């Protein structure tokens, strides 16, 4: 005959196994939720409504290691700062699309754009933008050039650009491209042209 203690041990172990099973089931669900949230490429806010006008976005192209222009029509508000925000929003839509030629990490977003006279623009990227960005000199440089060139080509008077991450200074984008200093728009223009020229060769 089975002793009473043995029966109780078996019952307790069965309950413990059941509890652990429920716990594992709970953890599994939580892990799935985490995966979903990590893969959540949150869409940027809808663009401004109203009549559209032509703009030129400068897209990074990983296949050719260059910056290529893309002419599109988008609705732009009146104010310079709002126009800058809309331009970068349109650029991000291009990058987060499935046919993007330059991969940005899931959840990458431009938080804010500030136009500070005379001629200084501050671009504030979100944390996911920098944390999930691919690491490498050229791939980081292409991202930075794309942001700067898109703004400077469509909004006259921009001379310098400063890039922040989550409202704070950061040393590099993903280990390479310097974010500690300001960018000289004229130098960026020359470099984009040089990239195009070397690609043409």
């Amino acid at each position: 005959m089975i002793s009473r203690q043995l029966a109780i041990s078996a019952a307790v172990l069965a309950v413990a196994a059941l509890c652990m099973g429920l716990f594992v089931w709970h953890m599994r669900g939580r892990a799935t939720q985490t995966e979903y949230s990590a893969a959540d490429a949150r869409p940027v806010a809808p663009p401004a409504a109203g009549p559209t006008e032509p703009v030129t976005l400068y897209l990074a192209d990983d296949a050719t290691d260059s910056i290529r222009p893309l002419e599109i029509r988008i609705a732009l508000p009146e104010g310079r700062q709002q126009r800058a925000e809309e331009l970068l929003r349109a650029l991000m839509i291009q990058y987060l699309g499935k046919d993007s030629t330059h991969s940005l990490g899931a959840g990458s977003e431009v938080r804010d754009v500030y136009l500070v006279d005379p001629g200084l623009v501050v671009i504030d990227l979100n944390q996911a933008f920098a944390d999930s960005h691919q690491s490498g000199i050229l791939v980081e440089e292409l991202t930075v050039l794309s942001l700067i060139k898109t703004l400077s080509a469509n909004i006259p008077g921009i001379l310098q650009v400063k890039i922040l991450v989550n409202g704070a200074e950061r040393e590099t984008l993903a280990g390479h491209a310097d974010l500690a200093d300001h960018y000289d728009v004229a130098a960026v223009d020359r470099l984009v042209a040089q990239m195009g020229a070397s690609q043409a060769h």
Partner: protein
Amino acid sequence: MRWSNSRYYDFIFAASLVVIGMAGFTVFESFAAGPSVPPKQLTIYTTVANYSLPVAEYHGRDYVGLLELLEPLGTVNATVKGKQWNLRFNNVQAVFVQNSATAVVAGQSVRLDAPFALQNGRGAVSLNSLAALLPHFFNRQISWSPSSRRLIIGSVAVHFTAQIVRNNPPTLVMQFTSPVNPQVSTEPGKLLLKFTHEAVVAPGTAVLTFGNKDITSASYSETNGTAALTIAGEVPLFASFSNNGRTITVEPSAQAAMQMQTQAAQKLNSAAPGSPPLNAGTEPAAVLTGAQSYFVVIDAAHGGQERGAALSDQLGEKDVTLAIARRLRQELQERGITSFMLRDGDATLTFDQRAVMTNHIHPAMYICIHASSAGSGVNLYTSLLPPLQNNHGPFTSWSTAQAAFLPASQSLENSLTSALQQSHISVRELSAPLRPLNNLVVPGVAVEVAPSTSGVTADLAYPTYQELVASSLAVGIAEMRGHAPQGTP
């Protein structure tokens, strides 16, 4: 209601079991949440390639995919017919049957240690079966270590000797039969050399004692596919490489620092203008002498806590940059050019530290090595400067210090381009917002090495490719000798 004594004890017993169960579960959870254990792997060393494969657990035993093991070593073809798995490797035909511990290889019956596993058309054998199985596929000497999961096929084992050649200061010299490129790291009282790419094998005894009070012993160990040498010392130690990677010299770093300071006192008359003040720990480790006027600083980018780009699951940018930097140093040495590496181990250096050290030494040029899995060939970068800032009297602006040296940097870039092209390596010249280039008061170029063929990241770890890039860079650097621009801030 009153409980009987028997029921009371039953209740106490059950409660105790619950408490013990909860305690056990808590301990389990704390272990599960602790540092992650690296996945099990099998490392194979051959004359053709060295590579690692993941090990899967199946019915409590370690298994490895047979196709994955053989593919890098020859022509493999496998077909499935019901439970039978037919494998052809070069000219050897083998037949395995699912869940059977007997296989037929080259017409001979081979007894496996555990049943053959077949899943989704891919066959796997237990690791302990390899010793019996592989001799039928290879007509070469096979050495298999089950405890460390290292498989050496052919005569590729790297042997070494270690001896103290000098007592004051103590110098431990280790001679290897083939070039090695271990990961070097330090812990208090230890210098660790981890060999992930070379088939280094144990010396006669696992622990070598030297009878020296500063460098006491060297212990050899193998685990999870890699070999490691732990050199114990009473003082901080550092390792340097020579003889094309065949010799590793271990010395107390204090001695090096003392030597460095003595030499520095002879040479360094003034620090670079505009440089931030030196910290105690960032003194340069080499200086110019009259006979070494053409002197190059090599900077292996990243290091320590900063891994750089993840080139693959197991290959970090910091390891590749260090390997190429060491090869470049060797190539320069063979051409009679003195160089100094800002890091020769797994050290963390800030951009400012790198710039300060370089400016302080004031070399003829600065070469920074990066690596990337994207694209192919080599990209060369000079500084993309921020908007120019005014210098204040003799003080140069830190963020645009490179401005006066940019033409010289571009000349250096051209020379490197020419040399790389002569080696049929595709090259692209660009500028980039890359520190510490902006802060240098010497000509400086960053070199980003990508695979020779786009997408083949493994190229970056191949010694032959690293050697080709390093020797080409050395040629370009040597070409600049004679008309090298000298930095005069």
